[in-house]
């Protein structure tokens, strides 16, 4: 490497690298040390693997995140498709509607869901009032409530990458497919869908990995009945004061997340998603 690219690299990437080293990598290293205990060893990790509560919560966290991811993808795809088909002005409006929740605190949004989903909430009143159900449904303090809340909050992370990949598909490919004899369903399944897969994969990874670490929404909408990994760690830190165990849990989650992203990168190539 000659001097010029090196200097460019330092100037452009330097500040963010320093920031990451200071506020992220250093505490993370402390966390690793903490999880190994004193004297350092793998005893804490060993205990985790035989801890039924931890394993149950781990599986539940993954299940919720997976369900949320699938629902988000299914819900996001039509919206993203719509965005590519409307005029630019309408697309701008829809994009604002998609992004609007980002400007509202996650805590506020979760409280809003509590108002909507509680026993005497708006949703239940509507359902009972319309005679769709006889008695109010249990929409909170269970996995359903957590899922509803997380889907709403994570949906933009699914819509935007899918929209970007749909937008990148050359319009003439659709024309070509059509003149070659493909009807609208065939055009979708043979051309549009496969070409949008990098966006779908990016959306899936963004939603799934974020979902694994969710705390506020499960804590408020799930309560003590739906404990996720982040909530378990919180109780270890604040109530049980078992910091090494909490650190070990965090490390397990981190390694799994890194593993998922890495295998994703291996299969699809992250750079292809961003291009």
């Amino acid at each position: 490497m000659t001097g010029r690219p090196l200097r460019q690299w330092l100037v452009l990437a330097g500040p963010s690298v320093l920031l990451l080293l200071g506020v992220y990598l250093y505490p993370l290293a402390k966390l690793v040390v903490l999880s190994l205990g004193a004297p350092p060893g793998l005893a804490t990790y060993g205990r985790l693997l035989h801890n039924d509560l931890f394993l149950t919560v781990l599986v539940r966290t993954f299940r919720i995140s997976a369900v949320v991811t699938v629902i988000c993808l299914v819900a996001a795809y039509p919206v993203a498709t719509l965005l590519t088909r409307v005029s630019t002005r309408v697309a701008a409006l829809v994009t604002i509607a998609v992004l609007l929740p980002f400007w509202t605190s996650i805590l506020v949004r979760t409280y809003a869901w509590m108002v909507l989903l509680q026993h005497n909430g708006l949703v239940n009143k509507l359902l009972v009032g319309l005679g769709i159900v006889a008695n109010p449904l249990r929409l909170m303090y269970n996995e359903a409530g957590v899922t509803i809340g997380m889907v709403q909050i994570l949906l933009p992370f699914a819509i935007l990458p899918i929209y970007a990949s749909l937008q990148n598909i050359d319009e003439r490919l659709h024309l070509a497919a059509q003149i070659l004899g493909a009807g609208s369903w065939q055009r979708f399944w043979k051309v549009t869908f496969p070409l949008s897969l990098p966006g779908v994969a990016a959306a899936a990874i963004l939603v799934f990995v974020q979902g694994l670490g969710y705390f506020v929404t499960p804590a408020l909408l799930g309560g003590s009945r739906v404990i996720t990994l982040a909530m378990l760690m919180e109780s270890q830190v604040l109530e049980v004061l078992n910091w090494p165990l909490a650190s070990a849990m965090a490390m397990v989650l981190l390694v799994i997340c890194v593993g998922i992203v890495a295998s994703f990168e291996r299969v699809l190539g992250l750079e292809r998603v961003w291009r």
Partner: protein
Amino acid sequence: MSRVLVEVRHVSKRYGAVSAVDDVSLDIYEGEFLTLLGPSGSGKTTALMLIAGFEELTAGEILIRGRSIAALPPEKRDIGMVFQNYALFPHLRVFDNVAFPLRMRGAARSEIAQRVRESLRAVRLEGFEQRLPRQLSGGQQQRVALARALVYRPSILLMDEPLAALDKKLREQMQVELKAIQRELGVSTLYVTHDQKEALALSDRIAVMKAGRLVQVGAPIDLYDRPADRFTAEFVGEANLIEGLVTAVGDRLVHVRVGERLDVAAEPCGDVTVGRRVGLMIRPEAVEARERPEGTPNEWPGVVREVVFLGDLVRCVVRIGDSVSLKVVRQYQKDEVTPKVGQTVTVAAPPRRWTILPSP
């Protein structure tokens, strides 16, 4: 002439107040290579899109083999098309790109394999079946697009400036190949280009378009020798265009006065009457710059104003009198003495090489 394949009848396409295609009527014959030639914005691509079905007609109708295709969506029209950027499916290998139209038609596996092989052989791309489009050169992608458009034996092949993205050398090479493939398979082709040389090189007939209207349709040689108007004369090939007043009409020669003194004799064509203003056109290669007069008709003294040596050709501009300049092109021969700027020469433009354009 062979049978009519496509009939375009009084077709118009308007976008609001703008006419992209204006009352165009055109027959395309079985097996012919017809080119829509025009500058950008002349409506040639819109005309192609109307036939493909990507745009809806404002007026008129299009028939293929005598049947109106108005009610058919593009996927049911059985038309082949090559796009300007090839529009190959980037996620499919060459084999699957070419097999795509056959699969859409529910062809059997064995038939698909055989037809794809034949088609790739026709475009000389055997052995490339497992490549992805991005692993191919521009020329190769072009040929895959052609194979894909031909593999289902469409009634007609539409091509929208398919060579525009290639560099000059490759473009000329692809022209030769394209023509050879088209002749070999005998597929009727409607080709769109703004490149008059390409149109001349490829076409059986050329339809010249201007501002949404069809200006003239004819074989390349007819168009070159007898352009119907000034536009075609200038757009197809290179032209010397002057105008003047008809002073005498004889059996064998028409005399036209150009400017104050110049008298041009030309062979009569169409209805030319004394006193009418007409346009006169002669190709640069039909004009000769001689060292001295030889006593033939239409010899005038002139002064060489520009000389450009191009290797195979020498191009000059010669000034005659005050108002007329003629471009002169001639083949260069080894060790020949080329004209010099400022030199006085005799310009000869034989009467039978002129074309009289009815309106100036």
